[in-house]
């Protein structure tokens, strides 16, 4: 077991640089999720850790060894691929035993390890004798995990392992992966584009955008204090409403483009008075208010009843930009109604309109 350390990791294909210097320390036993939109370089970064891509610049170490020039086999890692990459001509048993055979383990040892992994993953004897093509998607996924487990590596790497499963199975396997990682306590790096998967699985998240790390932190930290506009828009579902706004001259109110304004925590943004900003308001932080001190009038366009919640899509005043509000329970609302809405001052996120960085006091 070992931690993983990335220092100034850069990847370039010819002159095109795709990863622009990533720094990250992953503690021993930690579950780090790399999340970002497709093409952000997250898989490339994972493959660099695995040794499947050459590291252009910077340094990756696993445990206390710098692995830059080591073959994948020498890095003591196991990887679960998006398409599982099971060997189609081998039985499930042999799929799991392959790596051990190559390592020259005794037959009895191999058998014990494979059986133990099969037991952990609830793969019965009958399944062990089948070939991958005779398995369902969920079973293949389990075998792929089994192949990683039997090796007892110092780190697991997951490359979008759940994206080929249907929604229900995905939720179930997500839970299994989390339990497994907790029980085995093996350092894991998990790549996904699905922010829900990222939030639920990781001890920490790395949000990657265009090959640049936007923020690294615990899921709740990212949710409560997104460092950039990108993270703000990416983490949370439905996504945070990002509205053009201006901080009032007193620095204690944020004026929305619709004409209404909301109260800010007193004194906190005094230094930014008059600045053009982007206001971030989470759908679930809106409440219907009677108070006329801090109120924005939402013109309702569409109402979606989900049972547990009600999603209201609408706009503020004469501003045509649409936003989403999530209200608890069933609400008796109609389109074209105007709702007095507010968000508690401490829950309002403000970002610099130019740099996209979070404004702190």
């Amino acid at each position, binding site marked *: 077991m070992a931690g993983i350390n990335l220092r100034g990791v850069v990847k370039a294909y010819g002159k095109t640089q795709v990863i622009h210097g990533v720094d990250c320390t992953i503690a021993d036993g930690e579950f780090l999720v790399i999340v970002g939109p497709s093409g952000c370089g997250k898989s490339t970064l994972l493959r660099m850790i*695995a*040794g*499947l891509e050459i590291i252009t610049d910077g340094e990756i170490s696993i445990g206390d060894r710098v692995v830059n020039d080591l*073959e*994948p*086999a020498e890095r003591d*890692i*196991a*990887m679960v*691929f*998006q*398409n599982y*990459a099971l*060997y*189609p*001509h081998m039985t499930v048993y042999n799929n799991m035993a*392959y*790596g051990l055979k*190559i*390592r020259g383990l005794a037959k009895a040892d191999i058998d014990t390890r494979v059986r133990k992994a099969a037991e952990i993953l609830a793969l019965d004897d009958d399944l062990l004798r089948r070939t991958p093509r005779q398995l369902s998607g969920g079973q293949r996924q389990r075998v792929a995990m089994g*192949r990683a487990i039997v*090796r007892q590596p110092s780190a697991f790497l997951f490359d979008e392992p759940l994206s080929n499963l249907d929604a229900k199975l995905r939720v179930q396997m997500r839970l299994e992966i989390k339990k497994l990682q907790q029980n085995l306590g093996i350092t894991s790096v998990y790549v996904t584009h699905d922010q829900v998967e990222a939030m639920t699985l990781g001890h920490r998240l790395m949000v990657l955008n265009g090959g640049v790390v936007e923020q690294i932190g615990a899921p709740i930290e990212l949710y409560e204090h997104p460092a950039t506009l990108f993270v703000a828009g990416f983490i949370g579902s439905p996504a945070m409403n990002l509205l053009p706004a201006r901080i009032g001259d007193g620095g204690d109110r944020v004026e929305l483009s619709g004409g209404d304004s909301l109260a800010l925590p007193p004194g906190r943004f005094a230094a930014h008075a008059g600045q053009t900003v982007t206001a971030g308001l989470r759908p679930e932080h809106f409440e219907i208010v009677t108070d006329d001190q801090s109120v924005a009038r939402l013109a309702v366009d569409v109402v979606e009843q989900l049972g547990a919640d009600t999603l209201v899509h609408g706009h503020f005043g004469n501003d045509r930009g649409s936003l989403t509000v999530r209200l608890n329970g069933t609400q008796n609302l109609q389109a074209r109604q105007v709702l007095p809405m507010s968000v508690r001052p401490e829950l309002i996120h403000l970002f610099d309109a130019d740099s996209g960085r979070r404004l702190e006091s």
Partner: protein
Amino acid sequence: MEKRVVFRNPVLPYLLLAPQLIVTLVFFIWPAFQALKQSVLLEDPFGLRSRFVWLENFEYLFANAQYLDSLSITAVFSVSVAALALSVALYLAVQADRVVKAAAVYKTLLIWPYAVAPAVAGILWLLMFNPTLGILAYALRSLGYDWNHQVNGDQAMVLVVVAAAWKQISYNFLFFLAGMQAIPRSLIEAAAIDGAGPARRFWTIVFPLLTPTTFFLLVINIVYAFFDTFGIIHAVTQGGPAGATNILVYKVFNDGFIGLDLGGSAAQSVILMAIVIGLTVIQFRFIERKVHY
């Protein structure tokens, strides 16, 4: 789900099948029956009279040392051609699969030999190995090896095997390369992470996954060596020296059209047909079981 086309007009499907059926009938079935018929007849060289002789033509063949020689020569020849053409093609495909720069150029160049007609290919190799003029014969001689396929039967065999295999390599190469590129990269990567080196990855992952391709090519190559190598033999050795490269298909031609023994030649064709049918059945029955589809 099965897709079926329903024809309203009952004649149309037969009309659509007709070209293929006619070609098969005229060029395959009819000549095959002619050969069958001819093989039990004894005909004079001028084609004026023929006599029904039961299976005398066959009895004669199997008592004939030359014919039995030709059988074993053909076995050696076709196995060598298939083995050489398959292994070289596989090696080249493995190398081509790794090439990143100018891969298209490399592949195109490797495909060219297939476009060369067998007789031309034969002449090409003949010139290179010509004992008096050939550049390769000259090179061999300067290395202290005396090359003269015009008198040495083994050397003649090597020459026709090389020429025949050379032409088939392109074809095999294409199929191997396509087969290899159909193997997902992640499989190879998974094996690399599992600790398998390049050679081990090839023999435990890539090669087993190529068995369907290899099996198909084996059948094609054997059939090629049996029949399509006529042009090469004819151009390079004419079956010589002293019948050392007289493979069955060449002997059929030689006995029938040069020797004018039409009945004997037809009997040989029939045996040749039976051998190829037999080989194909054996290959599909027994080798296919070990193949992973």
